[in-house]
């Protein structure tokens, strides 16, 4: 029961917490008698906390929609592909990370193997051409390939 209330008011609580956090973590509001760097954070933190309290109460719960396995699979597929990218980037550099992450996302989204491989390949090549050759932007090459491309 308390868990349900917590969930019901989750937005309000989150906003309240964030506002109070900003208020308390702010630096001093006055420096040598003049307005300081903490003035605006205190104002906005307080404003957030107050407006969180004024939020309209959530409507009566219609009952959480039962998540279908397909939808959960897709969402976790997205999260997994993001994690793959974030974790592989410092290790292997951005090209393997991008390719693998795109592959994971495609497969979890329901594409066939042929479609997934083709799409990740095309995407990686397009980004490689655009970023490294056209725009000359330095992207990380990872610890394993620190010889540089």
């Amino acid at each position, binding site marked *: 029961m308390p868990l349900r209330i917590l969930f019901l008011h989750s937005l309000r609580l989150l906003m309240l917490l964030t506002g109070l956090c900003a208020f308390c973590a702010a630096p001093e509001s006055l420096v040598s008698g003049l307005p300081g760097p903490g003035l605006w954070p205190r104002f906005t933190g307080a404003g957030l906390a107050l407006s969180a309290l004024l939020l309209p109460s959530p409507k009566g719960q219609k009952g959480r929609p039962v998540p279908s396995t397909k939808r959960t699979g897709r969402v976790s597929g997205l999260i997994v592909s993001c994690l793959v990218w974030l974790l592989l980037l410092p290790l292997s550099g951005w090209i393997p990370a991008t390719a693998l992450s795109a592959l994971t996302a495609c497969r979890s989204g329901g594409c066939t193997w042929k479609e997934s491989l083709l799409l990740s390949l095309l995407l990686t090549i397009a980004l490689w051409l655009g970023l490294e050759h056209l*725009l000359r932007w330095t992207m990380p090459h990872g610890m394993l390939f620190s010889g540089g491309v």
Partner: protein
Amino acid sequence: MEPTFFDPSLFSGVLSGLHAVLSSSLCLLVLAGVFLGMTVGVLPGFGPPAAMALLFPLVYVLDPLPGISLLAGIFYGAKYGGAVTSILIGIPGEADAVATLFEGHPLALGGKARQALATATLASFAGGMSASLGMVLLAPVLSRVALVLGPSGRAAIMSGALLLVAVTSPGGFRRNLCMIFLGFVLALPGMDPVYGSARLTFGSWQLSGGVELTSLLLGFFGLGDVLDALSSKRVLSDTTPAAAVPALKKRSAALAALRGSLLGFAAGLVPCGAGVTASFASHALEKRLSRHPEQFGRGAWEGLAGPEASNNAAAMSSFAPLLLLGLPTNPIMAALLGALTIVGVVPGPMLPSEQPAFYWGLIFCLLLGNILLLFLGLGLAGFWAKLAEVPFRMLWPVIVVLCLVGSYVGADGLHGPVQCVFFGLLSLFLKRHGCSPAPLVLAFTLGPRLETYLMQVLLSTW
């Protein structure tokens, strides 16, 4: 000698400007700039400032007018590219393309991608042309508005826009007010704009750059939308029925574009977050004035035409404070100010009479860019629209990867994508509780400026 309202001597240089523009190499340069800008604008996270920085070396090599015109062409092209991604895949290239996606993306999902792109192009063209006219006739007088309107005036304009958005965005005033404060709070971490000291960084040096705008935009509108689509209950057919989308009424869309142009033109003259403020305000205004406000959010054509016209008009009119006062109103203008310094053009109220070939040449180059974009936009609309027919299961992985890479580039570090994923999840959470992202994004963009103006007012009267 101060320029008067309608001083004929200001127009003495028009012919020399026209002559300079009609040379063929200049036209090609502007065209090249527009194409490059478009390529850059379509890549989310990689904004015009980065592209312009890459082409800065060319400014040293070329003569003043061609060099600056190239940069201005990139600027325009990037705006168009940003609108394309906003409408087609719902990822805003930069902050002033956000208001376009509120109506543009639902239209594309409803199968009207081609018409949406064409409308956006026409509205942008109208905005650009009317702003150019205004620039030519009224700029010297109106640029002084930027001088007279001090910090308190600018803060008032921004607060007005925020209030308008809070009242008209879906979700109700109380939720929107909360979102506005959340936007302010999210903009807090990082370095204080006045003292330069770090605050709310919790010991992380990467946060001393603050929450990245790119990560916020890509997380909220890119990842967030994908998460929402993947986890929502509605049947994931690859297109929604076209009957759900309202029909285009040309006259009301044209009127919306006109209103948007006026709003954008006025907003661009003053440093108040021009393009962003104007486009959000235009969207909110259109919703308020519309006889069918329930269409907004599902593909209202006025809500697409207004913001597109206003952000182009604002882009055009922000050249006025830049050229006539040396006052850049956004980071891209600041980069252009640097380019002006390099080529030896000194901004000031006497620029039209002292360097007429440059001043009028630039205005004509911008007009040329505008016309080029009209043809490109209308011609390419069909081509881009074909891309929108890609099935969703193949589109969303591309969006996710673009968001991750784009936020890395935008933030210049791994903290960018991390923030992006966080904002994607936050966006899902907020949507499930009925909160709209518009007030949050506007407040986030305007927060630091609002704080600076507040501190300026306080420090000058303490």
